[in-house]
């Protein structure tokens, strides 16, 4: 059955993947976190006033000569190494020619058939714990384009615009484009693999410190190539390229959508048009952009204004030595150190809590407490506000030290578990640190053993039948009495102490 979503028909996902094998290709553009642009000394700060970070080189003025940013080349090599690539011994930049106002030079300086890094792979872990190896075809250096603002159209889009306004602050910011080989054989899990790949890449690049990889600010952008082949067929179908899919969730959704759309076209007896598609975050669909065949004539040629890049093997090895521990190895090491089960570790990972737990343990908390307090209530509240725990905690000013303080209050015997939960809620409500909240709310285990003993006596007297069972050896019945004692004490008692007292009183014989 075919249903219509937006303008075009799609086949339900399950039916689509039952009949076809998806092949994916992902192109990820990463803006490097260098202080200056790729070929000139203009700064790269995000959000600066328009056209305040420009010079004759990045404006393409006559006579200006580009010079390569040394740090950008090093970052590109490090990225290549982290992706298990070979590093070119000699490579050049090339001009990619096209006439469009986002590039004032009328070409983008890129690399064509001689990328700095090639033939690598990245292992990504899927939700069920299995690993999928994504092969990397190449990673090459290039420069970002300017930003256009379309004026006069009702929607701020190109259609209906009277003219466009261009800001060249972003033009020339160093980019590394990472291109995968076709990802085949993932079947129905193609959307998950796509998302896991982008997430793993993001974590890796962040750990390396080469980019701030903020997808929402555009410092990491993803294009999704997709084609379908009839199940079991070896040949690849006609592909579409969906541009600017700029969140992890959208990567997964865009793949699913395109699988369904291609499948509807193919089962309807049609053929897929090779074209660029635009992703619409709000409606979750793609729409047709320009036809590929019109645009792909870029007449590349070697950039005559730049000399070749030829990193020595010593340079490459020196850069390899600067790579951080790979995220997968780091996760294994931390899981061992923290003594978490696979399930616990996965929950911590999926919630994005690894760094926070690490900081909290470093601050003096036990791994169990760190995991416990950063999951649960905080996660529930963060989720309710549509954010993640780290951002939420940062906004509230809740820190690893607060967790350490809370754990000390429990260990020191001042709070029991349910009181600690109340204190934590107070901390999250902005009432101050744990000790402050406990003081303000008057939360403290009653240390007065007289009061506890009186409560135990009262509860035993009120429940002679239960007391008899315990005397007879049915120790498990003690739970019912502990509950009542805690109620008598309004929760402000140490449950373990109550248990000891009750069992003392009701010892057999």
């Amino acid at each position, binding site marked *: 059955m075919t249903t219509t979503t937006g303008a075009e028909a799609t086949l339900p996902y399950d039916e689509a993947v039952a009949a076809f094998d998806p092949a994916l290709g992902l192109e990820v553009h990463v803006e490097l976190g*260098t*202080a*200056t642009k790729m070929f*000139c*000394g*203009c*700064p790269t700060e995000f959000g600066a*006033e*328009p*056209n*305040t*970070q*420009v*010079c004759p080189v990045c*404006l393409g*003025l006559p006579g200006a000569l580009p*010079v*390569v*940013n*040394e*740090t*950008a*080349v090093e970052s590109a090599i490090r990225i290549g190494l982290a992706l298990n690539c070979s590093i070119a011994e*000699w490579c*050049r930049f090339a001009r990619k*020619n*096209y*006439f*469009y*106002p986002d590039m*004032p030079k009328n070409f983008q300086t890129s690399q064509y058939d001689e990328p700095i890094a090639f033939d690598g792979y990245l292992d990504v872990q899927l939700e069920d714990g299995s690993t999928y190896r994504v092969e990397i075809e190449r990673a090459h250096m290039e420069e970002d384009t300017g930003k*256009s*603002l*379309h*004026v006069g159209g009702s929607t701020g*889009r*190109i259609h209906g*615009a*009277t*003219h*466009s*306004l*261009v*800001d*060249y602050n972003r033009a020339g910011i160093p980019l590394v484009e990472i291109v995968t080989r076709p990802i085949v054989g993932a079947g129905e899990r193609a959307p998950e693999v796509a998302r896991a790949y982008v997430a793993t890449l993001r974590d890796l690049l962040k750990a390396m410190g080469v980019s701030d990889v903020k997808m929402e600010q555009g410092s990491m952008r993803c294009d999704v190539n997709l084609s379908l082949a009839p199940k079991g067929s070896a040949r690849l179908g006609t592909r579409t390229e969906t541009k600017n899919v700029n969140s992890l969730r959208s990567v997964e959704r865009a793949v699913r959508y395109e699988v369904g759309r291609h499948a509807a076209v193919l089962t309807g007896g049609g053929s897929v048009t090779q074209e660029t598609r*635009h992703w619409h975050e709000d409606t979750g669909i793609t729409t047709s*952009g*320009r036809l590929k065949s019109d*645009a792909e*004539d870029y*007449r590349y040629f*070697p*950039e*005559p204004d*730049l*000399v*070749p*890049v*030829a*990193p020595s093997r010593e340079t490459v090895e020196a850069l390899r030595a600067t790579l951080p521990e790979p995220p997968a190895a780091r996760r294994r090491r931390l899981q061992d150190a923290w003594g978490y089960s696979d399930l616990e570790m996965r929950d911590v990972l999926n919630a994005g809590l690894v760094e926070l737990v690490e900081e909290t343990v470093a601050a003096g908390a036990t791994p169990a407490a760190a995991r416990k307090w950063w999951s649960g209530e905080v996660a529930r509240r963060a989720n309710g506000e549509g954010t993640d725990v780290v951002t939420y905690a940062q906004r509230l000013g809740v820190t690893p030290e607060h967790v350490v303080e809370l754990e000390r209050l429990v260990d020191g015997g001042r709070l029991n578990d349910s009181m600690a939960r109340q204190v934590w809620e107070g901390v999250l409500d902005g009432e101050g640190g744990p000790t402050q909240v406990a003081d303000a709310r008057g939360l403290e285990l009653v240390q007065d053993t007289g009061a506890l003993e009186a409560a135990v006596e009262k509860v035993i007297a009120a429940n002679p039948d239960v007391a008899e069972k315990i005397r007879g050896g049915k120790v498990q019945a003690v739970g019912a009495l502990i509950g009542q004692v805690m109620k008598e004490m309004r929760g402000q008692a140490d449950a373990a102490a109550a248990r000891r007292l009750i069992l003392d009183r009701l010892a057999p014989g």
Partner: protein
Amino acid sequence: MADLTRDDVAHLAGLARIDLSDAELDRMVGELGVILEAVATVQQAPITDVEPMSHPMPIVNVTRPDVVRDCLTPQEALAGAPESEQQRFSVPRILDEE
């Protein structure tokens, strides 16, 4: 070298955003053909033992440190622009592409 066709010229004109009339297209086929022919004499050069090159100097790895240098002011940057608005370069609307 294969002859330049009228379609080739029309295609290149489209890529270069140059609007040519039929008469201009006809004229350009002839003129560009002559230029290509003249340049093609280079192909007769004996290059069997010559390494391909893209730069006249045999140098590699010319880089600069990642240090910020002075930029133009927005006024300087926009000084040569035929039109500007909101401190941005104003360009004619762009059709059929995003």
